[in-house]
């Protein structure tokens, strides 16, 4: 049964247009149902938990409580690493600390029992059921495309909250991406922080973070980076021109991981707004599709 409560998060409606469109496309294809939480609100990342401890837990708990009320039997899915981290933290504390739960329930004015899990889309698409369903729908494999899978920090850490078994070299995204026929490279900055949390208030300080990540991906032969978070995605690609000027950072397209799957499933470019990326991706994608077709003919 592939049904989940869905917490879209603020970016999904705006800057993460490609992510949202491709996510919806893939879900349609494999028959996965996402029920958007009715009346969801911003989880508060990245300011609420910085400024006030209870607020940092209550804001995500408010959405979670609504999800629990509307869809008591569904786990909660979210596509953004920051939202995932905040929602999961709130759920974790409410589940394990009765004192926190009391505070939170009083604050949001609703009961919240934290019965269901918070999941990110890597967990969800990484299940055997989803993997099989996706495998069946792949129509045009992307041959020879070298992909660096970027997890970011909050999708895997802290271990006590996320429960991720491997925080240095996770492989879930690689497993999913390899369905599309693309080759995942082995690289070393999968789970390093991109500084997305401070992209406005500490721009100068976070620049080098993006630089080293992109450099390592390119050095290991990647043609593109895929992410599982709209914030990481934007932070890695939006200022590439600027980084090129300052550090000489190479330019590289950055996709949401669902985009590659959607393309491999045969999605039209417009359907998933592939041209909305800051760095032109059409060439490498077209090349990969062509190589895929050739391999098919042979």
């Amino acid at each position: 049964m592939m049904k989940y409560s869905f917490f879209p998060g603020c970016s999904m409606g705006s800057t993460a247009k490609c992510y949202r469109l491709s996510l919806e496309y893939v879900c349609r294809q494999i028959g996965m149902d996402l029920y958007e939480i009715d009346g969801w609100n911003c989880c508060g990342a990245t300011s609420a938990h910085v400024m006030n401890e209870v607020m940092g837990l209550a804001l995500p708990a408010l959405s979670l409580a609504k999800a629990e009320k509307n869809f008591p039997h569904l786990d909660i899915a979210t596509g953004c690493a920051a939202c995932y981290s905040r929602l999961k933290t709130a759920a974790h504390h409410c589940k394990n600390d009765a004192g926190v739960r009391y505070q939170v329930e009083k604050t949001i004015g609703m009961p919240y029992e934290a019965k269901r899990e918070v999941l990110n889309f890597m967990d969800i698409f990484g299940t055997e059921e989803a993997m099989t369903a996706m495998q069946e729908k792949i129509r045009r494999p992307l041959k020879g495309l070298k992909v660096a899978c970027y997890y970011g920090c909050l999708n895997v850490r802290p271990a006590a909250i996320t429960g991720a078994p491997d925080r240095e070299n996770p492989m879930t995204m690689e497993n999913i991406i390899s369905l599309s026929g693309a080759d995942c490279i082995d690289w070393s900055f999968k789970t390093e922080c991109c500084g997305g949390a401070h992209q406005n208030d500490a721009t100068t300080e976070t620049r080098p973070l993006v630089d080293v990540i992109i450099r390592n991906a390119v050095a290991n032969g990647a043609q593109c980076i895929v992410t599982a978070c709209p914030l990481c995605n934007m932070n890695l690609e939006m200022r590439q021109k600027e980084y090129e000027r300052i550090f000489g950072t190479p330019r590289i397209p950055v996709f949401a991981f669902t985009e590659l799957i959607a393309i491999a499933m045969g999605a039209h470019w417009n359907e998933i707004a592939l041209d909305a990326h800051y760095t032109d991706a059409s060439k490498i994608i077209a090349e990969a599709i062509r190589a895929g077709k050739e391999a098919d003919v042979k």
Partner: protein
Amino acid sequence: MSRVGVFVCHCGTNIAQTVDVERVAEAAKSFPGVVYSSTYKYMCSEPGQAMIKETIEKENLDRIVICSCTPRMHEVTFRKMLKGTKINPYQLEIANIREQCSWVHTDKEKATEKAINLARMSVAKVLLNEPLHTSSIPITKRALVIGGGIAGIQAALDIADAGHEVVLVEKESSIGGKMAMLDKTFPTLDCSACISTPKMVDVSQHPNITLMTSSEIESVGGYVGNFDVTIRQKAKYVNHDICTGCGLCETKCPTKVISEFNQGLAKRPAIGKMYAQAVPAKPVIDPNACRKLIDGKCGLCAKLCPLGCINFEDEDKLVTEKFGAIVVATGYQLIEWGELYPEYGGGKYKDVITGLQFERLVNASGPSEGHILRPSDNTEPKTIVIIKCVGSRDPKKGKSYCSRACCMYGAKHAHQILDKIPGAKVVTFYIDVRTPGKNYEEFYDNTRHDGAIYVRGRVSKIYEEDGKLICLGEDSLLARKVAVKADMVVLETAMVPAVGIRELAGMLGIAVDNHGWVTEAHPKLRPVETQTGGVFLCGVCQGPKDIPDTVAQAGAAASKVIGLLNKDSMETSPMISKVDESKCAGCGFCVKMCPYKAITLEDIDVRQGPKTVKKTVAKINGGLCQGCGACNVACRTGCIELLGFKNNQILEEVDSLCL
């Protein structure tokens, strides 16, 4: 009627300032059985003891209570004193009015009250004390040494030189242990093989030493002076009685597998010696690699052997031998770091190696004949990073302890790199540099003068970029992040106990700590003894240490063994359990309780009226019983009593407190 004497000690002012000792002595006079009481400044002193002895004679005492410091301090002293009197040394009780009274209380009135209570309890107990006598058990004058590393070799040689027979058991096909793998030893830089191989040869030629390689301990029975040990001699598939060690089989064997001795950096044939200087210098077949033994298709060595030594039908043999003492010298291995440190690549980078792998690389008899070459492409590295405390001092991922030798061999590695590779750059990441040993600090100093760079900080991550291994660390003295582009990284990984130590410890009845290091009987005063009589330890099996300490400890263990074996028999503590056979029902419950397997069930003949009938009763082996008393409590009929701590003695103590 018993005649008890009570002696209250002032212990200078230690007791007297918080306890009114005179009042205690006065009160003691009213206790049942007490005929005499007095106080003295220092009961344990020469005049104090003389006074007690005199009083015993004069007052015709038959048991005494001494109110003084803890019995753990002077019980033995006073028992020795009583040996020269008419009183049995076990007709003595000590009331602890110092550590558990005067030192922990301030209110003199209450402390005195408590001291009186304690004295009364001791008097009540001593009234029920019985004279006890030590017994003696014979000693088998042979020693077993488990482990053939430098610790085991040294211990075996020392014991054998003293004239006692020794059996040295080693699980590998050659003795030599880890020291045989090393290139040079710090701080003198003498060649490890040059100083250890002569000792190995001595072992093989010593008339008093029997060497059992490829052997493991199967089971251990018996007790101090009389151990029965079963040893499994694993099949060697080569008849060592006729083999001359010509080495023909070794050179022709077509099967090559990864060499454990070379730490995975080279290959070895399926038949052969562990290494060139192996002792015994004769080959064995590795049954997990030999094609003939796996699928029956080869047997080349058997065809080639000029003497026909190869026997594919060879089987494991079990031998049981008697020993008087056992030395545990099972040593260590390095921690499996790959799983624990994904941030260091988790083993995927070939040029991230361990200290022991480096030893093989730099060793003239190693796979690269002493040239330091990168395992990945056999080129000479120019920049080498040494990381200390990998797995050590890391309670989350590895071990909480310090592995003690790494700082020094890390410095040695740095020195060797700078010595062998002109223009090389060595960066050592450290948290602390620990050099507590003779000439150690000087060696470290020299290494820095040689040009080794020491950066204080632990490396957070190693990753590969453009063919270089980039080590991210913090120079914590500058509080700046540093990224060193290295060609090779040496991890000085933690020492962990050898595999199987827990099973062995279980067989021997000795304790290991939560890491698996064997626990000594006392960390300071009995460092080579274990809690089981007759079992001694030496070397790294007790905890990480370097070669000088290991050899010193091996000598110490040997001297303890020699001391034991020089005796023809030994005395045992009389404070052990005793069965009242007339009451014993033979239920066998105590047998299960005893941690020392000291209790067995036996059939005895009892007279019942005119008839003699068989009856099953528990029998206690005085050599094995350690006097814990667990069986007492388990005994349903109450027929087992722990001498010195009998049920009625403790009950009397309880009663007298509540008066």
